[in-house]
């Protein structure tokens, strides 16, 4: 589904991604771990089409050149990012926002648009997945939401838009254990064989709840180590220091 080949990204003359290679197949969950500043979030940003990077290498998504698409075209092609810091948008109602988004996607796929009534029942049903209070639909997007509410709102959006490839950027950050469990169970409910997920996280904790098929370690803009879910436990026990040889290979001090 997704094939990243020697992807490099530079911003303000600083190379953040320094040759990333990664392949995801439908139905797989891949976790990317790594220290701060290793380029994890930049990878997510590049995949959804954030402006301002000088790019080289290639990203192929379902046979298309992903890097040539605008953010909205990527969304239409089935890519979704759960933001690390969801944006507050005063004055735009959460429900109106999601209905507009879903209908943009449906229009693109030649499907009939949903009217307010049909959308409402669908949206409410999806809210149950993340145990969200229906009143959140009537509020401005993320405005005044707590950290946990924002993250649930991201997963609710994912449940509505039903992407093929979901990227979760630090979805566990700022969540207490109960909120983490709720968010993770929402994500797990959306797991299926047609959908791939890329889970970016700092902590092994999230991976207790969202169990990945593969774990990658990113450092200094490259994936330096890949393994199965046991790699996450190893990292938890030994820290990134245990990966010194790999880090040394890319020329970075541990």
């Amino acid at each position: 589904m997704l094939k990243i080949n020697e992807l490099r990204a530079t911003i303000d003359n600083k190379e953040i991604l320094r040759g990333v290679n990664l392949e995801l197949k439908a139905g797989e969950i891949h976790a990317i771990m790594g220290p701060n500043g290793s380029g994890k979030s930049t990878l997510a940003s590049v995949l959804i089409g954030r402006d301002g990077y000088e790019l080289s290498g290639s990203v192929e998504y379902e046979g298309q050149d992903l890097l040539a698409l605008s953010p909205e075209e990527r969304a239409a092609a089935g890519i979704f990012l759960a933001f690390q810091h969801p944006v507050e948008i005063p004055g735009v109602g959460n429900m109106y926002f999601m209905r507009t988004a879903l209908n943009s996607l449906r229009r693109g796929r030649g499907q009939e648009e949903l009217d307010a009534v049909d959308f409402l029942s669908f949206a409410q049903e999806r809210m149950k997945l993340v145990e969200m209070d229906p009143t959140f639909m009537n509020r401005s997007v993320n405005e005044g939401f707590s950290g946990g509410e924002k993250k649930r709102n991201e997963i609710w959006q994912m449940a509505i838009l039903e992407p093929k490839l979901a990227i979760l950027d630090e979805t566990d950050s700022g969540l207490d254990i109960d909120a983490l469990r709720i968010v993770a169970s929402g994500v797990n409910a959306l797991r299926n064989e047609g959908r791939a997920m890329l889970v970016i996280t700092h902590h092994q904790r999230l991976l207790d709840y969202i169990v990945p098929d593969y774990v990658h370690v990113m450092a200094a803009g490259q994936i330096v180590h890949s393994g199965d879910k046991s790699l996450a436990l190893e990292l938890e026990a030994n820290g990134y220091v245990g990966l010194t040889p790999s880090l040394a290979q890319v020329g970075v001090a541990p």
Partner: protein
Amino acid sequence: MTPVKAIGGVLADLTPRRGGDNLSWLAEARFNALEWVGQHGFPSRKDEDWKYTRLDPILTVPFEAAITGSGLRVSAELINAASVDLGGIRLVFVNGHFAAQFSRLTELPAGALVTTLASVLATTPERLEPFFSHTPGGRHAFAAFNDAFAEDGAFIHLASGVTVDEPIQLVFFSDAEGGPLMSSPRSVIIADAGSHATIIESYAGINNDIYFTNAVTEVVLAENAQIDHYKVQNEPVTAFHLALLKVRQGGNSRFSSRSVMLGSSMARHEVRVLLAGADAEVSLDGIYLPQGEQSHDNTIFIDHVATNCTSHQLYRGVLDGRGHGVFNGHIMVRHGADGSDAHQQNKNLILSDHAEIDTRPRLEIYTDDVKCTHGAAVGQLDDEALLYLRTRGIPMAQARGLLVYAFVQEMVDRIELVPLRVQLEKLVADRFAKSERSVEP
């Protein structure tokens, strides 16, 4: 009466018709007003309060003063399309003169009078003398010009304790087919103690007509009176619109005004509020949305004279194309106006590299016991919010429209009159659906 040749500009060639001036006081007031303009001239950019106002076009077009019955194309359909029918009483003025055929007079509670300035001049002119004689034609040439030329407008008087539930709608429509016209509507609203009414002024005209609306509305509130005022300025972009809303508030009175500026090539809405009685409250909102070559000017002066009065100003502008906006908000807290509470906020969203805003909050405070806040902000669309919307599949143009609309919507939501709010939501949404998208970030 002699035209005031001494002053610059073609406006000076106009001579008032002698409407109503078999009355010596009125003839004198009109003469004095023109004489004042002759001595002082029209304002220029050297005048503090007109520094950012683009007046040149108004002073160069050869306008003729509109007369009764001018306007041949105007129809009920055009008027209905240009204003929202709120069902209640509705006075329609065409080129500044009452048009009975388009108006609707409904029964009002005893003690409520809603009529025209012309009819008051004809029957009980003495009621108007204080408004013409004591208008400081002096301060402001266009207000003086209105003194000299005004023949008609609305006259509303609410006796003590009277409440009019249905909104009173005043529609000022222009039809200037024959050539550039100047209309000078003058409205007077007198709210006696404890009375209450809602009044809407709408201004509109026919596309491509060149005309100049020079309007003055005066509101006098006695103790405990309440007036909720709305103004929708949606003149065609070939028109000019200068308006003065002058308010005097007695003790514990409440005045609110919500203004929406959409139209005109050059529009200025000036509000002057005198808080003369203790514990009075005023709340002014404004939305202005210049685009293309439009210029929208909001000039506000709030004069805290009495103790414990409260004033709120909340103005938001969206500037696109080569649009130009002005927010010039002046709060004066006089010596002895203890316990004054004055707040002012102005926010602007600039959508194009060529749009411009001059925002100028001014506080002048001569007492210690006062609470004042003010703030002005100028920004662009939030890139992060745009990206967020786009990652959900919302195309760029629609995402921009959504964010701009949201910025204005917060103000539109404050309009309590539901049919008017619905009309404005539509006007605003249409505006941003077809607004120029100048820069793709």
